[in-house]
């Protein structure tokens, strides 16, 4: 086993690649949750139901101020005390998704504000309800402003996702730690892991930059 573990290819195949796959999985799921939930947050904040808007504002503020690690520990170890045992993946997706939603809300807000208010008024004039105007007229136009910054957020999420290793989700950081424990070659192992993180995040941030320029 020792000789096998001297080989970086064995680290990759046995540990780091499956770990990277889990990083991608938790990031993509959390991103999807986050952009959906973020839109709901923003619509709630804009709704005429006052207390709803206030509650969302507080939740967003807290989510943005809390270290992801603390949130993960509350969701994974704390909620288990309630008798609701979440899997590491469920807890990870839930927390990262909520954090992503908190940031996405601001992005949606800016995107919706960027659409001229005449558009909404015109839609209301021809008899659309407020929600229809949002869905068919405002949001399609806001999308253009929203996609580049959301793509940027996705890069942030890849990086934040490393914290899920602390609730024993075997992501890239977790596996790199396992290999370091077996080989005592932290420099090489984490060097390799960091390169793999770059391979995940750089293409997305290039995409974000291109989208921003072509806007």
């Amino acid at each position, binding site marked *: 086993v020792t000789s096998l573990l001297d080989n970086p290819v064995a680290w990759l195949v046995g540990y780091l690649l499956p770990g990277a796959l889990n990083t991608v999985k938790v990031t993509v799921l959390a991103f999807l949750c986050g952009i959906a939930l973020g839109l709901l947050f923003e619509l709630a904040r804009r709704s005429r139901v006052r207390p709803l808007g206030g509650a969302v504002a507080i939740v967003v503020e807290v989510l943005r101020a809390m270290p992801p690690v603390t949130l993960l520990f509350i969701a994974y170890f704390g909620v288990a005390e309630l008798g609701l045992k979440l899997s590491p993946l469920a807890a990870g997706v839930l927390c990262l998704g909520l954090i992503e939603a908190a940031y996405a809300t601001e992005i949606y807000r800016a995107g919706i504000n960027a659409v001229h208010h005449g558009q909404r008024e015109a839609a209301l004039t021809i008899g659309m309800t407020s929600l229809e105007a949002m869905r068919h007229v405002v949001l399609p136009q806001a999308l253009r402003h929203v996609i580049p910054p959301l793509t940027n957020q996705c890069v942030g999420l890849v*990086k934040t996702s490393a914290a899920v290793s602390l609730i024993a989700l075997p992501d890239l950081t977790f596996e790199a730690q396992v290999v370091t424990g077996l080989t005592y070659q932290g420099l090489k192992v984490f060097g390799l892991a960091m390169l793999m993180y770059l391979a995940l995040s750089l293409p997305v941030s290039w995409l974000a930059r291109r989208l921003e320029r072509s806007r």
Partner: protein
Amino acid sequence: MAFLRRLSEDLATNLPTWLPIFAAATVTVLRMVALAMVIALSVGLLLALGRSSARRSVAWLCVVYLEGMRGIPAFAFLYFVYLGLPSIGIFLSAFQAAVVALGLNAAAYMAEIYRAGIDSVHVGQRDAALAIGMTSGQAMRHVVMPQALRVIFPPATNMLVEVIKGTALASAIGAPEIMNRAIEQTSITFTPMAVYVTAGATYLALILPCARLGRWLERRAVRERAVAPG
């Protein structure tokens, strides 16, 4: 409801023990943040200036550092510093490793903030400074930087918030900060929810004022730009 009652009972029983522990951990976090910010602010400035250096190799190295550091998780870099550097003979304590890793990571983001600030000052300011005989360095120090600072302050405050949040990662390598103490207490009292909620509240008490300050500075900077001539 039964759960809320239990949570408040747990808090009532344990808070007298926890308060001094979390207070000491908060002091550790503040020391960690202060030192990491010193690294972030100074290395970040060097990177921002080095990036537009006339020497191609220096500029290129700075860009590689910036792009690379901004693409990897601070957490992976923290492990690299703590578990990796010993194999080339650099041994850091958990606290030192956290300061170095968080500082060097934040420096990459700070460099972008400096750059945006410097770019916001009209080139005519620098040209005028050079015309009256200042060197390039003097023009930066006495003319460009003082004006760039008001643009730099608000996002730098946000960076401070990110660094405070980042210190929670140092619990994983055993630095005696808030999350580390919280995990320790969990294994003594077996009340994870109460402990982690207390830890979360401690972070909020540290971070919310900083976030507020950042937003206030931002609003002020926007107002000033709106009335400033040119």
